[in-house]
C-alpha cells in the first residue's frame, strides 16, 4: 500500500482503520490488551497523511492506529505489536502505546502526552540541516490534552524562532482521557494559543476528509515554500472511550449522539455517493475487502511467535547485545 492514499482510496483507508480498531476492541473483549482507538477521527489521519510525501516524517502518540494505517502500515504487524508478538513493528516491546515504523517514516512515537511535541523540533531541525531528503517536513499529531502541557508552547515557540518545517496537527477530539476539554481550557483555546505564537493557524472540520486534506496540502506546500511551521486544529470527536474497555458513562449522551451523526466515514461516503463516484454496492464491496484484510491480519498476529526474553536487553544500548 502506498504511503500516500489517493483521493479514491480515502474511503477504503478510513474503513480499514475503523475495521482494524473494531478488531482490536474484539481482541480486548476476549481478554486481549486494551487499546486507545481513534474511532471517529479517521478523517484526520487520512486527510493529513495523504497530503504528505514519503520523504516526510510523522510523529504520533498513544492513539496512532489511524496515522500508521494511513501511512501504509501493515495491520498484521500492527496487531502483532499490540499483542506483544515478535512480528510486531517493535518486536513486541512497544505494545500499542508507542508503535513506530521507521521504514514508513513514522518515528519516535511517544505515549507521554506531549512527548511527540518535544521530539518533533529535533526531527525537523535535522531536516533543515540537511539530514534526510531535501524539502522534507515533519508532521506531528497530538491531542487537545497535549496542548495543555507546557511542552506544547515550548515546541511551538522554538519552531517559530528557528523556522522549522513542522506541520502541527492537533486532533481536538474534545476529550482528555476522562476529562472533557472544556474542563481544562477555554472554548477557543487551542487556536488562540497557537495564534499567540505567531504562526499561521487554521481550524478545520476534522470529520471531513476532503477538507482536512485540502488544508493539510496547502499547509505542507506553504511549509516547503518558506520553511516555517504551520498549525492545523482538527475539530473532531472521540466516539469510543479513552481506552478499551470504557463504558463512557461520563460522556454527555447528547454530545455523543450529535457527533455520531457526523461520523467521518458517513460524511465521506455521502459525498462520494452524491457525486456519483461510488454506490452502496461498491461501498459494501470495500467493507468486505477491508474485513477480509483485517481477518487475515488478525490471523497473522495471533500466529506470530512471542519474542525471546533476550529481547528485553537486546536494544537498550547500541553495543553488542544491547550492552553499553
Amino acid at each position, binding site marked *: 500500500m502506498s504511503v500516500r492514499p489517493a483521493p479514491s482510496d480515502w474511503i477504503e483507508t478510513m474503513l480499514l482503520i475503523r475495521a482494524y480498531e473494531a478488531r482490536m476492541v474484539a481482541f480486548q473483549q476476549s481478554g486481549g490488551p486494551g487499546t486507545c482507538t481513534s474511532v471517529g477521527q479517521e478523517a484526520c489521519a487520512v486527510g493529513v497523511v495523504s497530503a504528505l510525501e514519503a520523504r516526510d516524517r510523522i510523529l504520533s502518540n498513544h492513539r496512532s492506529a489511524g496515522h500508521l494505517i494511513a501511512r501504509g502500515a501493515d495491520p498484521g504487524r500492527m496487531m502483532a505489536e499490540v499483542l*506483544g508478538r515478535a512480528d510486531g513493528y517493535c518486536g*513486541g*516491546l512497544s505494545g500499542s502505546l*508507542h508503535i513506530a515504523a521507521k521504514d514508513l517514516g513514522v518515528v519516535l512515537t511517544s505515549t*507521554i502526552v506531549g512527548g511527540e511535541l518535544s521530539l518533533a523540533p529535533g526531527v525537523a531541525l535535522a531536516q533543515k540541516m540537511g539530514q534526510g531528503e531535501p524539502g522534507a517536513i515533519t508532521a506531528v499529531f497530538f491531542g487537545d490534552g497535549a496542548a495543555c502541557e*507546557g511542552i506544547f508552547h515550548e515546541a511551538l515557540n522554538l519552531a517559530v524562532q528557528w523556522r522549522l518545517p513542522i506541520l502541527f496537527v492537533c486532533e481536538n477530539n474534545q476529550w482528555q482521557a476522562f476529562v472533557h476539554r472544556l474542563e*481544562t481550557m477555554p472554548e477557543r483555546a487551542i487556536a488562540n494559543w497557537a495564534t499567540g505564537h505567531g504562526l499561521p493557524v487554521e481550524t478545520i472540520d476534522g470529520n471531513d476528509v476532503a477538507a482536512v486534506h485540502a488544508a493539510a496540502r496547502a499547509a505542507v506546500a506553504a511549509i516547503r515554500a518558506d520553511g516555517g511551521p504551520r498549525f492545523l486544529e482538527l475539530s473532531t470527536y472521540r466516539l469510543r472511550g479513552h481506552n478499551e474497555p470504557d463504558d463512557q458513562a461520563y460522556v454527555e449522551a447528547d454530545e455523543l449522539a450529535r457527533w455520531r451523526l457526523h461520523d467521518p466515514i458517513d460524511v465521506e461516503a455521502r459525498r462520494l455517493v452524491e457525486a456519483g463516484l461510488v454506490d452502496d454496492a461498491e461501498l459494501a464491496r470495500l467493507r468486505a475487502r477491508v474485513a477480509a484484510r483485517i481477518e487475515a491480519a488478525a490471523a497473522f498476529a495471533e500466529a506470530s511467535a512471542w519474542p525471546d*526474553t533476550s529481547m528485553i536487553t537486546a536494544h537498550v544500548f547500541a553495543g553488542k547485545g*544491547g550492552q553499553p
Partner: protein
Amino acid sequence: MSRMTVEQALYRAIAEEMARDPRVLIMGEGVATKRRDLVDAFGAARVRNTPLAEAVIAGTAVGAAASGLRPIADLLFAPFLTYAMDALVNSAGKLRALSGGQFEFPLVTMALTGSGWCVGAQHNHNLEAMFVHAPGLKVVMPSTPADFHGLMKAAIRDPDPVLFFTDIGLLYQEGEVPDDETHVVPLGRAAVRRPGRDVTLVGYAKTVGVCLAAAEALAVQGIDAEVIDLRTLKPLDTATVLDSVEKTGRLVVVTEASGLCGVAAEIAAMAAEAAFGALRAPVLRLTGPDAPPPASWVLEQATVPQPDAVVAAVRGLFGTQAAEPAEAVALA
C-alpha cells in the same frame, strides 16, 4: 476486618482523611470523573480534575501545601513524574531547608508503576529510587491492602512531602483491612512478614510476595528464610533489616526496580557497612533488568524476579557456587 482490594483500601484511606481534615484535597487528571463518590462526599472544590499538565499540578500541590492545605496529587503513572520533577525535587524537597525551615510541605503524590498491565516503559518504570536519592522527600511503596490503607493515612498526615507508589500488579489484590478508622501505619517501619533463622529476604511491593513464595519453597528444603517488607523506602527502617542480618548472616534483596543505584543497592551497601561482621555470604541483589520494561506479556513477566530465581540464589549462598549476576537471575 473487612476484605478489600488495594485500590479500595487506598480510597477508603483518602476518604477517611478527607472527612477527618478539611484541609485535605485531591487533584488529578480525571480524579473527579473516576471518583464521583469523593466529589459527592466532599464537594468539587476538594476533588478536582486538572488540565493535562503535571508540572503545574505538582507545583500547585507544593504551593498549596506550604500555604495551609494538605493536597494529594494523583499523577497517574510513575513515568509522568518526569514532568513534575522540578516541583518535587527542587521545590518540595529543597525549599524547606534552603529557606532555613520557613516552609512545610505536607503533600502526597500518587503514582502507579510496575508490571502487570503490559503498558510498557512509558507507563511502567520503577523509578522510586530517584526520589529516595533526592533530599527532603519520603517514599512509600506498600504490599498489602492494610498497609496501603494505613500508610496512605500516615502519608496524608505527615508534615513532609510523600511520594506514594502503587504497584500495578497489586492494585486488585485483596486482603483484610482493619475497620478501625484510627488504623494508621507509621512511615519508616518495615514489617517482618515471615520470621526465619537462616537467610534474610528483603523486598517491597510485589516482590514481598515473591520472597514469601521463595521462603515456602526454601522451607521444604530445610532453609528457614526471614522475609522483610520495607513498606517505606524513605525513611528506611535500617534497624529491622540489620537486626535480621545480624541473626541470619545472609541477605538477598529482591526488587522489581533495576539494580544500579536502586533501593536494592542501598540495602546491600547498608548491610555491608553496618552488619559486615555478621555476614557469612555475599549480599545478593535480584532485580529487574537495567532495561525499559517491555510491553509484551512474556517479556514483562521476565522483568520481575521470580520465586525460583530467589530460591536458586539462596541455595547458592549455602552451597559453594558463586552468586549469579542479578539480571541473569531476573531473566532466568
